[in-house]
């Protein structure tokens, strides 16, 4: 146990042993099984499976709408965090609590609710249909669902940073003659940028894999509104395990890439705070 460097409390061996055992059994073993299965395909077979037209269309939709949804969240997330931290208004703490709803609400419930809201005869769908915008069963619907899923991420990463910003710097900027907008753009925004990007990346990563909230509103037309996770499910239902695993491996690689990026961004955030 020489690799333990600090800590005097008892229970190191027990908690380490149990944690590693549980993580190994429940997380690492199944993921390893998938990676081994994917690598048993052989490079040319793997490549054909992950680059057929239907898969490419699915990646395009998944990455595109996840990007659009997360971008929308980056803009409105900063706005919501700003309003919650800086202003006092009735119902503020209820609004603050509701931000976490997409974490707690089952995705299937969110999915059917959003579909009903944005369907042609839905509350908002009807208004949008009047101006010629169709949401349900289009790529726009997918983006809306992914925006819903990503709401907490940017708000919750930006909020603590915004709380910690010292008013002195804003005062200094004001004293030096900066307008309020200039102060935001040149002083506050740079301080918020690392946290905003972290939140964006987290929302993006979550949106890439999202399934439940999207399948109802998307309409699931192959080549048009079929997201990658749904393609995996479809292949599984046809007992095409190899095809499902190959595409899952691509998605897993993308999520690990995002995880790495998030870690780097968080390190940057901490450095920016220090």
């Amino acid at each position, binding site marked *: 146990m020489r690799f333990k460097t*600090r800590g005097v*409390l008892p229970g190191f061996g027990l908690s380490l042993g149990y944690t590693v055992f549980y993580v190994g059994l429940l*997380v690492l073993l199944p993921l390893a099984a998938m990676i081994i299965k994917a690598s048993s395909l052989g490079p040319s077979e793997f490549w054909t499976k992950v680059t057929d037209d239907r898969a490419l269309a699915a990646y395009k939709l998944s990455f595109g709408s996840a990007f659009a949804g997360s971008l929308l969240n980056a803009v409105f997330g900063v706005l919501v965090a700003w309003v919650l931290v*800086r202003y006092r208004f009735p119902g503020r703490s209820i609004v603050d609590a509701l931000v976490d709803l997409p974490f707690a609400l089952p995705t*299937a419930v969110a999915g059917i609710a959003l579909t009903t809201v944005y369907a042609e005869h839905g509350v908002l769908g009807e208004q949008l249909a009047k101006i010629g915008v169709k949401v349900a069963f289009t790529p726009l619907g997918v983006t809306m669902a992914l925006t819903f899923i990503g709401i907490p991420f940017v708000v919750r990463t930006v909020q603590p940073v915004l709380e910690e910003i010292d008013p002195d710097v804003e*005062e200094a900027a004001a004293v030096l003659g900066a307008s309020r907008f200039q102060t935001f753009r040149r002083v506050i925004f740079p301080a918020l940028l690392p946290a905003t990007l972290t939140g964006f990346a987290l929302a993006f990563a979550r949106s890439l894999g999202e399934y439940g909230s999207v399948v109802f509103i998307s309409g699931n037309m192959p080549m048009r509104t079929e997201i990658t996770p749904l393609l*995996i499910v479809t292949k599984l239902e046809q007992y095409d*395990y190899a095809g499902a695993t190959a595409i*899952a491996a691509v998605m897993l690689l993308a999520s690990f890439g995002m*995880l790495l990026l998030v870690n780097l961004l968080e390190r940057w955030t901490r450095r920016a705070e220090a």
Partner: protein
Amino acid sequence: MSGLVTQRAKSAQRRDTQIGESVLVRVLLITLALAFLGIFLIAPIVTIFSAAFSKGTGPYWAALTQDDTLSAVWLTLLTAGIAVPLNVVFGIAAAWLISKYDFWGKSILITVVDLPFSVSPVISGLIFVLLFGARGWFGPLLSEHDVKIIFAVPGIVMATTFVTFPLVARELIAVMQAQGSDEEEAALTLGASGLQILLRITLPKVRWGLLYGVILCNARAMGEFGAVSVVSGHIRGLTNTLPLQVEILYNEYNFVGAFAVSSLLCALALVTLCVKKLAEWSVSSRQAKRDASARALAVPASSTVSLEGVIP
């Protein structure tokens, strides 16, 4: 550390009076933010409840007391009843390990604990199909002994446990790291055993974080859809959890039924958010109390003795 809360309040006041935005800008920004949240958060919640009760309370109640729905309720309770305790025990062990010691590979361990968050729910289901499905690694072995995991309850429990795995650990790690181990180390010098320290000091100290972790883990376990839908096989009355029941009813155009079941899950989510808010309040009020007592005692910083090195 001390007086952070009051200092924050003061600085907020200073911002308001000297460098804040004009009232017009404020109202505009608040309206924009609320409009965004209204479209994406409030509208779906209102829709769930209004659709559930659109034909009155009679059909609502009938939809909930259908046989298939009741068996889905039972399976959901069973799944959460197994997955949540497993993840609570793991969460406590992992949080103790990560917050009380420094060791080689700690940051790798933290990353691995978070892994299930970044894996698509569909993939979380797929990995168990690859392990235990008819054509999976252990498939032949399982069918030899007539054990069914995929398209049966054990698979649902496994996938749910995987998906909700980091939730308790994450909450506890954050709270325990923030609170430090001074009290635990003091108890150790007074002769407490490890179990006594855990049960009588650490767990009471983190009780709100633990409660929120458990409630969130429970809500997610009851609401998991993607992973469970891959491993369940959708056998009515047998392997349908509540979210899968929502899907089936919705696809059968039984909207009242789908939204009635949804309203249960939505209520669960709203309760979860309330508990989170309560937990935050209790932590911040305790922090304020601690700040006040720290000021009253006003112990000079140099007199605090570090326990490190004192204990063998």
